[in-house]
């Protein structure tokens, strides 16, 4: 089965990191990439309804260019309010465990620390997010199929019950009504 096209937002105020991330993720052909320098710009794009992202890479500090820009954690909360299914991958130079725990608590899919292997790790996490997304989709499909099958089975039993009640000999055997 072909992988569906997915929209990925990169929200980062560091042009070097954004460029490197784009170059790394370009090889994943099923992704359409959009970049934003602040969380506010990304939220405006989502609210306009132009693009609905499936996966979002979000930097923790976003105010080095625009001092008034909200930080990544408050953008994460807003994104999750709009759609709890957004898969948000947090990226930060902060290696403090409490920062990572806080991000996960507010619904981040994963937390990646900025170091020399960040881009390789990011690609792996994006692929993990896609895999989980596909699994959830399959699960939903199986759930629907199971409900449909249950409904069909119950309908057949009910129909047989009605026929039985009307005195039809369903199994070719002599019934107690005989």
């Amino acid at each position: 089965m072909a992988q569906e096209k997915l929209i990925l937002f990169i929200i980062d105020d560091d042009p070097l990191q954004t460029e490197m991330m784009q170059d790394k993720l370009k090889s994943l052909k099923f992704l359409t990439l959009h970049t934003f320098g602040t969380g506010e710009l990304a939220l405006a794009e989502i609210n306009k309804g132009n693009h609905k992202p499936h996966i979002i890479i979000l930097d923790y500090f976003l105010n080095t260019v625009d001092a008034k820009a909200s930080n990544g954690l408050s953008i994460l909360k807003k994104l999750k309010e709009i759609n709890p299914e957004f898969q948000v991958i947090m990226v930060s130079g902060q290696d403090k465990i409490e920062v990572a725990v806080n991000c996960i608590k507010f619904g981040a899919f994963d937390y990646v620390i900025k170091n020399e292997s960040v881009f390789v790790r990011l690609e792996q996490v994006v692929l993990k997010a896609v895999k989980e997304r596909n699994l959830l989709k399959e699960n939903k499909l199986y759930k629907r199929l199971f409900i449909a099958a249950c409904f069909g089975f119950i309908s057949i039993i009910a129909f047989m019950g009605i026929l039985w009640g009307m005195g039809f000999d369903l199994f070719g055997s002599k019934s107690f009504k005989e």
Partner: protein
Amino acid sequence: MDAPLIDKKTLDSLTGGDEKKLEKYIGIFSVQLTRQLAQIQQGIDSNDLEIVRLSLHTLKSQFAYMGLPELNKMAQDLEAQAHSLNPVNFPASISHFIEKCKEGEEALKKVIVSTP
């Protein structure tokens, strides 16, 4: 004074040996470095350690990507110092850091020239 050591392995794994990519990254890095160093100087002059800390935080990651581990470590230490209320000899350490950064930038530019 010795120029900061460049970790060619990190650079190669980042660019996959693509010279154009390397040139592009060094170009963006140079622009960003000039901007961040100016902000650091401005922060020192106005005694605003938060501006200094933010710029050091940004540079710290960029040094890691660009294969400059020594500068990465320096930025990391200075960022931690900027967190404290009264860092000792901070302006002098920053001046030394800025000098090292410029040497690092020059060393990176030489990598492009020396790449066959």
